């Protein structure tokens, strides 16, 4: 099979290669994309113009350069997911430079299958299934074409590739469901494995959260078990910040000791729920304020400040169930009260001055806090997605000059004002609200629901939550972010007013995605165990046995179908069928018909050899000729012929 490939076949192969590489182009360095495109283009042209392939030194040189280029682009890390993919893509393209015959096609096709897989390390969304099927069918079509001497019509090869892929689908499903899964990873993941960083960050500066509003990505989905708390109580607690550097809030000191969570007095009715968290490459696990420490996942810690953290970065979608109490008292005294009072020197002098004066009017901590909220509510403060840029004294400028801000401005300013008056305060970030998906019965919390609020420590209640944004824009808390922002803001598309149809489509699509995530992408050792034990297949041996039987059965059915199609065509003519039956009997008896022998000659020849059969055979031949050449098919003695043939015995 070491033959040259027809020109069109080569072009088709190059087109499929381009298709398989294309989604990677977004991630590859620009030089590499250019190199790959150039190589593919050159190869297509070289085949057409019959140029010579480059000499060995050039191929080696290019390969070495590409290798160095990848090393350089990825800071010398060749083993990572990004660098590995980049290397695979460029090497597959360079293989084209020495691409001659059908054997090389096989190598390139295998590389293409492999490249397909690397794509899923970056994205496993629902649309990638379509991409997978299209690419597998196209690649398989290339393989079919290279097994044939001449070029085949793409319509034909695609249909053949499609038919094979279609017949392989049941096997794929069986293997997917029944192939015993073992918990990974087997050898550890490269540092850049999994999803990209997204969502809340570990610091909060003005503008950080409002930039998240632009994203309509899902942060997590929540299914409540039982009563659903009202929107105003749906605070999803995330990172807690205690350190203010004059502009940004950060986590300065966190107490993370297992079993040493917040001292809380949980009251009222528990809320049970399940969260499916999208991977965010951070450690935060979000929980409804305030989670019960006894309900947290095994690999998580509830910090002293009430923040829930996973032990490892969340690289993959994860699901956890929690119990929370929306009514609680966090009466613990701060371990280090001073760190909740610290303000950097030389920042926001006007704010400090203002706080002193206001404090003199309201010696009670809570009165003082309420006074500030009243100011936010009654004075012309605006809740806006597009606040003006702020300078060095960001809180001063916001409070006294611009008066336009988003939740991070209000919470930051409020916390600074509290600290300036000697009231311990900290900023809590997370999400607020969540939208019901009527079809799935779950709530979707998006990145655009990101929020920041404040906790102050007041004797004797302890830490209490104050949301200054609620004073400015109560709709934000009671309804949603869309309701709180005016239409004039130029909202991002995903937040503009929803028609019923749009809501329907979005909710349906989200439900499909949620099910995709929950049923397919999350299908691992645990879910498999859970699912298969319903059918009594709870151990690996039974799984393998069932899998083997199911695969063998499916393949046997397919084999039978293919053999039926490959079997000699059934003769249309009933009389001819009977005649063939007779010929087979005689062939078994050692007297096969000769290629150019009519029925009568044949019968006479056999009769001469076996006189005892002569009468029966002549009778049959007469019936056959009569049936076959009878003008009126109604009167043909078919039945008689069939009977005569069947009752004819050679023994």
């Amino acid at each position, binding site marked *: *099979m*070491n033959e040259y490939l027809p020109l069109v076949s080569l072009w088709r192969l190059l087109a499929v290669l381009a298709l398989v590489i294309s989604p990677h182009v977004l991630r590859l360095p620009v030089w590499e994309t250019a190199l790959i495109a150039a190589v593919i283009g050159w190869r297509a042209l070289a085949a057409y113009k019959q140029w010579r392939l480059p000499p060995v030194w050039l191929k080696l040189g290019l390969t070495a350069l590409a290798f160095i280029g990848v090393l350089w682009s990825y800071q010398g890390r060749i083993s990572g997911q990004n660098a590995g993919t980049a290397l695979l893509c460029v090497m597959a393209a360079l293989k084209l430079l020495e691409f001659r015959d059908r054997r090389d096609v*096989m190598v390139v096709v*295998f590389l293409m*299958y*492999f490249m*397909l*897989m690397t794509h*899923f*390390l970056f994205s*496993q969304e629902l649309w*990638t*299934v379509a991409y*997978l099927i299209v690419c*597998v069918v196209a690649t*398989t079509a290339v*393989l*079919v074409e*290279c*097994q*044939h*001497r001449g070029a085949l019509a793409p319509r034909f090869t695609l249909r*053949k590739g499609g038919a*094979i*892929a279609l*017949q*392989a*689908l*049941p*096997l*794929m499903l069986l*293997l*997917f469901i029944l*192939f015993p*899964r*073992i918990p*990974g*990873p*087997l*050898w*550890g*993941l490269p540092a850049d*494995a999994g999803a990209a960083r997204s969502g809340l960050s570990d610091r909060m500066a003005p503008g950080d959260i409002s930039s998240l509003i632009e994203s309509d990505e899902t942060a997590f989905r929540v299914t409540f078990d039982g009563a659903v708390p009202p929107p105003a109580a749906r605070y999803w607690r995330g990172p807690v910040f205690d350190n203010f550097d004059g502009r940004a809030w950060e986590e300065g000191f966190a107490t993370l000791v297992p079993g040493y969570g917040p001292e809380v007095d949980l009251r009222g009715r528990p809320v049970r729920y399940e969260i499916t968290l999208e991977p965010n490459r951070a450690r935060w696990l979000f929980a409804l304020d305030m989670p019960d420490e006894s309900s947290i996942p095994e690999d998580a810690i509830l910090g002293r400040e009430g923040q829930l953290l996973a032990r490892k970065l969340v690289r*993959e979608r994860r699901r956890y169930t929690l119990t929370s109490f929306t009514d609680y008292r966090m009466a613990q005294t701060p371990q280090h009260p001073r760190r909740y009072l610290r303000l950097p020197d030389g920042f926001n002098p006007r704010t400090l001055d203002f706080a002193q004066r206001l404090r003199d009017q309201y010696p009670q901590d809570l009165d003082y806090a309420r006074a500030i909220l009243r100011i936010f509510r009654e004075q012309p403060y605006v809740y806006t997605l597009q606040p003006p840029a702020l300078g060095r004294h960001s809180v001063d400028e916001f409070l006294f000059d611009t008066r336009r801000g988003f939740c991070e401005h209000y919470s930051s300013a409020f916390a600074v004002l509290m600290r300036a008056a000697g009231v311990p305060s900290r900023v809590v970030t997370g999400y607020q609200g969540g939208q019901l998906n009527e079809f799935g019965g779950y709530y979707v919390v998006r990145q655009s629901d990101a929020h920041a609020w404040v906790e102050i420590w007041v004797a004797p209640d302890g830490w209490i939550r104050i949301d200054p944004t609620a004073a400015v824009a109560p709709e934000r808390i009671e309804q949603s972010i869309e309701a709180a922002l005016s239409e004039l803001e130029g909202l991002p598309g995903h937040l503009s007013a929803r028609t019923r149809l749009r809501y329907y489509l979005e909710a349906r699509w989200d439900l499909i995605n949620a099910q995709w995530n929950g049923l*397919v*992408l*999350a*299908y*691992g050792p645990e879910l498999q165990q859970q699912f298969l034990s319903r059918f009594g297949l709870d151990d690996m041996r039974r799984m393998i046995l069932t899998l083997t039987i199911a*695969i063998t059965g499916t*393949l046997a059915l*397919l*084999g039978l179908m*293919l*053999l039926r*199609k*490959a*079997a*000699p*065509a059934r003769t249309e003519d009933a009389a001819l069928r009977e005649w063939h039956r007779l010929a087979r009997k005689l062939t078994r008896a050692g007297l096969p018909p000769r290629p150019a022998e009519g029925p009568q000659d044949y019968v006479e020849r056999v009769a001469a050899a076996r006189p005892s059969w002569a009468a029966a055979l002549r009778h049959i031949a007469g019936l056959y000729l009569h049936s076959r050449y009878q003008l009126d098919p109604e009167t043909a003695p078919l039945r008689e012929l069939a009977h005569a043939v069947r009752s004819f015995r050679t023994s």
Partner: protein
Amino acid sequence: MRFWLIFKILLHPLRWAQDRIDAWVMARVKRQPGPIAITRNRVYILPTRFGYFFALMLLVMLLGAMNYSNSMAFLLTFLLAGIALVCMHHTHANLVSVQLRAGNCEPVFAGETAHFELRIDNPSPTPRYSLAASWPKLEEHAVPGDVAARGSGLFMLSLPAGHRGWLEGRVFSVSTEYPLGLFHAWTWAELDMRCLVFPKPAAHGGEPPAAGGHGGLASSDRSGQDEFAGLRSYRRGDTPRSIHWKSLPKLQHPMVKQFAETLEQDLWLDWSALAALEVEARLSQLTRWVLDAEAARRNYGLRLPGTLIPPGRGDAHRFACLKALALYDADAG
């Protein structure tokens, strides 16, 4: 010995398995007049080199999918595994139930290549693609071809013709790797095929002898081309111009005028004229003379021990002579 066997199994599992199967099957292949129907139980199938490579790739992909717990990677791996398994059945079905029958085989001269025609009939409504027929161990050089639905395809099996006589066809394979090249399905068959091999013609130059016995003519007679030499009885094919009309009323049947030139064309190629040479060389020389005489459009006869072919010319005559030479004392040769 055992160590060597294990070594071979480990190094070339494919070749080892195929050799074992082949040896087992070859011992059971019967020579048949044909047509031979390739039934399910005559088709053998094993992965190709690429098939093993594909399996290795799937294993790596499976490990990768496990490591990353990546469901889409699992789906792709399992889809490809399914494709490989499905492909096995397609490859198998691509070969099953075709029928083999022997076609023509043009005679050749020793030293040339004999081309056995093999007809592959496809009685089914599904076309067959990329079938290849070949002798054992020569699969690499086979030229694959397609057979249309309910159609027939012509395949060539070439064998070097070593020496004169009957060249018997051997056990041959019909194989396919279509559609994906991951599996090699094959069958062994032996049809009653044989090719007549004429002796290798001797080099040019040896003039035909002035054949012994009658009819010997010196070249000096050639000058008297139109010289009247006598009358003989009319044979079909003689031109009316050559009929001796004058004698017709007297003899009641036509006579034909014979001239010296006509007479000298009855050339006798005689075995005994080459007594100096050994058997094969004699046959080679006679073959050469047959070809030369035919090329010169002369009548010639052949005299071999035990065989006598009267003078004549034309393809059938030439064939009869060459065949007699090819099969001369064939049992001894």
